[in-house]
């Protein structure tokens, strides 16, 4: 069966840690990193990458356009 898998890449230095993407993700992929970026913000990171479907919700609500979303269909 074909399976859609997604992934996100976060521009860590531009992330302001607002957490809106964490709230917007329907499959709880995103969490906040304990580490901080050079501005002192805890940045978003993929906590459960296996759940990502590449639905783009997180990127749509991100006020700083720091999220790039990828999606690929796997046949297995």
């Amino acid at each position, binding site marked *: 069966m074909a399976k859609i898998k997604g992934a996100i890449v976060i521009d860590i230095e531009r992330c*302001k840690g607002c957490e809106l993407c964490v*709230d917007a993700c329907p499959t709880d992929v995103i969490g906040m990193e304990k580490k901080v970026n050079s501005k002192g913000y805890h940045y978003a990171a993929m906590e459960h990458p296996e759940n990502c479907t590449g639905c783009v919700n997180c990127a749509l609500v991100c006020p700083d356009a720091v999220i*790039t979303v990828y999606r*690929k269909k796997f046949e297995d």
Partner: protein
Amino acid sequence: MEKENLRLDEIIREENIVFKKTPLLTDKVFSYCPGCGHGVVHRVIMEVIDELGIQSETIGISPVGCSVFAYDFMNIDMQQAAHGRAPAVATGIKRCWPDKYVFTYQGDGDLAAIGTSETIHACNRGEHIAIFFINNGIYGMTGGQMAPTTLPGMKSSTTPYGRDTRLMGNPIKITELVATLPGTYFVTRQSVHTAVNVRKLKKAAKMAFENQKLKKGLSFIEVVSNCNSGWKMSPIQANRWMEENMLPFYPIGDIKINGNFVKRN
């Protein structure tokens, strides 16, 4: 886990990109507070201009308010206007360049307080421009003072006990007001607090730019947004508060399309 990592390498490749930051936003980091709606609206407008392929034909007017530096973030021709005067400046530019796409980007303090007159007259004259109106219920930039849009009972730095309508009057629903003017061709209210709403705003923004080709009047797009710093909430709390308090008073939806009122239940 190793298998998952292997998969990530396969997924994170140029050819699998389904969303990335539009090149019509510059590399400057937004000056907005974390979680502020301004950034989303900037991005949506730039995505629409990118998709319509009108980057070199579009002129934007930035206001006074937190979004005063919109000209630094939007990779198009921009002009900054004095407080509240963006619709007047846009009028001048559009009349000199009738085939350019012209829009203003304004907060509620800019558009509905000091600029009320310019707003109403530009709408009434039916200038063939688009107005993006970001309503966060207060003056964000200057420290969260009451705006004409502040809800009854809503706390702000100048209404610490809540807006008393007997003393301060009622909030103005400027969007409903301009819809009554024959000069407006498209009037809508949107928000950016969920992915679905962002998609709807994008559709509306596209329509606002496409309408300019028809030269049939002004497109007015209100975006109900948060000012989490001014409201003294976290971004997530602010969006919830907005949903529970702002949206019942400022309901989302189209008010006027193609010059005709939309029937609402």
